[in-house]
């Protein structure tokens, strides 16, 4: 039914814009001392300030300012010598004051950039995403929509509100429009969010869990005819809760826009909601009349005038950039570009590194995470990191294989069992009774049986044709149900045949 992506990009040039909201990992909220623990019982982390009770007043969390400045510096932004909070006025039941304390025309960080690398047809290519601003604001409460059939807002009979999340510090990172990505717009969007997430993680300012909403991405997409400099109407897609969804949402919106434009229809400027199950977006309820947020400087708070030495201290303490870190790993591990790209794409670099740090050989660690574990993750439609297997488990397995106590085949069984929840590798080996057959007597019996079955092959080996031994080794492995160490089998077999 739908247009092919190739047809879209043959005719149109996509223009991207990304807004990322990040919940900061402070202990307390943005403007009050309430706890910020995710998943707490409803309304147990609220106070007069974050409930917006009459008379309550906000006081800024210094750590939130510090984190925001760190983010700005890591994104190559200028830190404003003077910035302020402003009130964004609109009514919504999840917002206790009916205004959001945010920043408007005086954000704390401006004019930065972030470079991302994409694996293109012409090899690895760098794209620069320019950052317009990084500003602070507060999160809203959470609504449960009750009654009706769907649990969704439309058709609900009433709603239940929990304000635990209200007032959690949020940072909004807004890009300038990103032109020139061509057909790689979906990949650039994804790479940008991934890179941003890695930076935030390296700064230790947020737990950046997209599925828990501590990192949320809104993707703005518009199309213009190739060769034209007239920007198209953009749509803003919300509810994009994974890296994969970022890519899917951008691609999906490009196709949807192109279909409309090809039919001579208009793209409506609106908010759309990404549907994880279908990969499509659904229109939000379009407002009959435009909102007017009536921003004005927040009179309950005073300006932020960060001390230059504070900024320089934070700058000096910035951790190594994820991109630099990756280059260093790539060299240390001697990994080719393509393999590096596939690790990044599969989002396993960090766990591979953790596995290596636990003593595993880099190539082996990479092999397991990108191979067997990635395969299982794919089957389950989750990321490798989400599976219940840890770098420690994998390092242990790699060590057991190296010591000859597991074969690759047995190791795969162990991995499956660990993921299935049967316990740690040592426990799995114990309970399943997995054991490499290393008893020379037992092996010799299997070897002799194999030679007896294939005497002509044995003759070839005796005659010096060593590669022919493979068939015999295979037979032995089959006989021992994979519990033998292939290297050991080879050694015994060749010796037995006078080689």
């Amino acid at each position, binding site marked *: 039914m739908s247009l092919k992506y190739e047809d879209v990009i043959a005719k149109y040039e996509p223009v991207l814009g990304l807004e990322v909201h990040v919940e900061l990992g402070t202990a307390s909220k943005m403007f009050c001392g309430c706890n910020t623990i995710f998943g707490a019982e409803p309304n147990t982390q609220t*106070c*007069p300030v974050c*409930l*917006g*009770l*009459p*008379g*309550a*007043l*906000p*006081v*800024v969390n210094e750590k939130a300012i510090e984190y925001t400045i760190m983010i700005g510096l890591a994104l190559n932004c200028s830190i404003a010598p003077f910035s302020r909070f402003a*009130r964004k*006025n609109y*009514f919504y*039941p999840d917002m*206790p*004051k*009916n*205004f959001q304390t945010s920043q408007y025309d005086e954000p704390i960080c401006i004019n930065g950039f972030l470079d991302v690398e994409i694996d293109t047809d012409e090899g690895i290519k760098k794209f620069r995403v320019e950052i317009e601003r990084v500003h602070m604001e507060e999160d809203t409460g959470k609504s449960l929509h009750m009654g009706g059939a769907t649990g969704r807002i439309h058709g609900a*009979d009433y*709603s239940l*509100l929990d304000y635990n999340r209200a007032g959690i510090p949020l940072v909004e990172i807004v890009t300038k429009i990103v032109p020139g990505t061509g057909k790689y717009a979906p990949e650039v969007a994804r790479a940008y969010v991934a890179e941003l997430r890695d930076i935030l993680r390296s700064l230790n300012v947020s737990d950046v869990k997209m599925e828990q909403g501590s990192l949320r991405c809104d993707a703005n997409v518009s199309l213009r005819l190739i060769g034209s400099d007239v920007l198209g109407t953009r749509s803003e897609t919300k509810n994009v809760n994974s890296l994969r969804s970022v890519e899917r949402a951008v691609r999906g919106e490009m196709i949807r826009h192109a279909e409309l434009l090809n039919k001579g229809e208009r793209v409506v400027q609106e908010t759309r909601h990404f549907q994880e199950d279908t990969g499509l977006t659904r229109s939000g309820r379009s407002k009959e009349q435009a909102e*007017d947020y*009536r*921003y*004005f400087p927040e*009179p*309950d*708070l*005073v300006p932020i005038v960060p001390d230059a030495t504070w900024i320089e201290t934070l700058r000096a303490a910035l951790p190594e950039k994820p991109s630099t870190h990756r280059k260093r790993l790539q060299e240390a591990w001697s990994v080719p570009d393509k393999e590096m790209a596939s690790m990044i794409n599969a989002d396993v670099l960090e766990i591979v590194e953790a596995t290596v740090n636990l003593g595993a050989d880099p190539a082996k660690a990479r092999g397991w995470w990108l191979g067997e574990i990635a395969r299982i993750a794919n089957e389950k439609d989750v990321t490798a990191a989400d599976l219940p297997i840890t770098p420690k488990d994998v390092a242990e397995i790699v060590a057991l294989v190296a010591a000859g106590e597991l074969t690759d085949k047995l190791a795969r069984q162990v991995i499956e069992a660990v993921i299935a929840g049967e316990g740690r590798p040592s426990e799995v080996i114990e309970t399943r009774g997995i054991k490499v057959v290393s008893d020379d007597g037992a092996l010799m019996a299997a070897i002799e049986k194999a030679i007896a079955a294939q005497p002509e092959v044995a003759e070839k080996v005796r005659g010096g044709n060593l590669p022919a031994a493979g068939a015999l080794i295979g037979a032995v492995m089959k006989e021992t149900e994979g519990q033998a160490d292939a290297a050991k089998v080879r050694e015994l077999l060749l010796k037995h045949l006078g080689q």
Partner: protein
Amino acid sequence: MIIKRNAADMAAALASGETTSVALTQAHLDRIAEVDKEVHAFLHVDSEGALAQAALADKKRAAGEKLSPLAGIPLALKDVMVQKGIPTTCGSKMLEGWRPPYDSTVVSKLRAADVVILGKTNMDEFAMGSSTENSAYGPTHNPWDLSRIPGGSGGGSSASLAAFEAPLAIGTDTGGSIRQPAAVTGTVGVKPTYGGVSRYGLVAFSSSLDQAGPCARTVLDAALLHEVIAGHDPKDSTSINAPVPAIVAAAKNGNVKGLKIGVIKELQGEGYQAGVLNRFNESLELLAGLGAEIVEVSCPYFEYALAAYYLIAPSECSSNLARFDAMRYGIRVGDASGVSAEEVMNLTREVGFGREVKRRIILGTYALSSGYYDAYYGSAQKVRTLIKQDFDNAFLKADVLVSPTAPTTAFKIGEKADDPIAMYLNDIATIPVNMAGICGMSLPSGLAEEDNLPTGFQIMAPAMKDDRLYNVGAALEAALLSKWGAPILSHVSGLGARA
């Protein structure tokens, strides 16, 4: 009758054992029971809580604990100040039945000083008004003449003092709501420097202008109360982090010899009642007789203060009052099957707010809306700068500035109810102080010859020089008392024989 004494004298009577706090509190509760049907100063009387606080103060005194100077003295609290568990309505139907789950900082400080809180006093709804006629619970009557207004918005607090229902009261002053009621009831009221008294728990009307302060019958009593409630509060970002000036010492040693007193040319003349100006000029003569140098100063931009105020205050209030939406507290109107939250908000705010509040919310919404911000709110903020500059220049020529507090004596209830602009003119002399964030005091300057009603004398001092108000106020008060021979409140006539 002990209730006719000053707070300082009552404190001496408690200290000497002449009476107890329980007896003193009971005497005031009896007085409230006797006269408040006519005065209607109180919206809620907390007899039980007051007597319990009094008993506690007596117990501490008996145990020899070191007590604050006002320990055991009763006080009336303006209903805009949050007190845990005690109905707080702000004079609005919107908050009918609301019992806050927390104490304002002012209440915490009063408790810590063992001041006995008798109850909550009537006010113009959300402190918007100059007559207390805008209370949803009916007007307060001026004890000097029950057919007249007691000023506003803090008419309940000032009337309670003039009717001897309480020796001390807390008011709040956004454009004159402490000083103008003091002027028309023959009492003393002080608006401290902005940031001098915490706003935490003061239900916000206009955040950049609101300030709580003491109401009393003498300058010394006001100073004693001011000292209890003043000081830095980490819960209020706009609170001044500096020592409180020595106000009680200043009130005990009033001396104006060699002091320069600036008369503001623009705050007299046309629009001011003759009797008000006569009393003002007599007070100036007394001050000159005490050795002060009287100089004239000009503040040319004051003529724009009223206009700027009626843009800034409504703008901030339109945002501050957005939280009253029927979702989390307060009344809820129109909730029925199929009715949306949005409709319930609309209906509740229509019913819950009075006319003046709605008028200001709409005006403020307009002044902040896109396309009008610069012309209205933005311009008003610039006028604010000019008014500050006027004060800065005037304070180069004088240590304090003076004017009549209000242009007229108390007018009749209903007289100006349909003419908002005439009503707004009541605040013409008090508003500049709020706009600049400086401090001001009103004290009685005698009765106007036309109507035998009290007039007020306003003293203004630079930010954080609140002690100057008390120094000058105490000197003038002493000179007036010796001239009159008896305190002005000995002439209160509205309550007949009970006065």
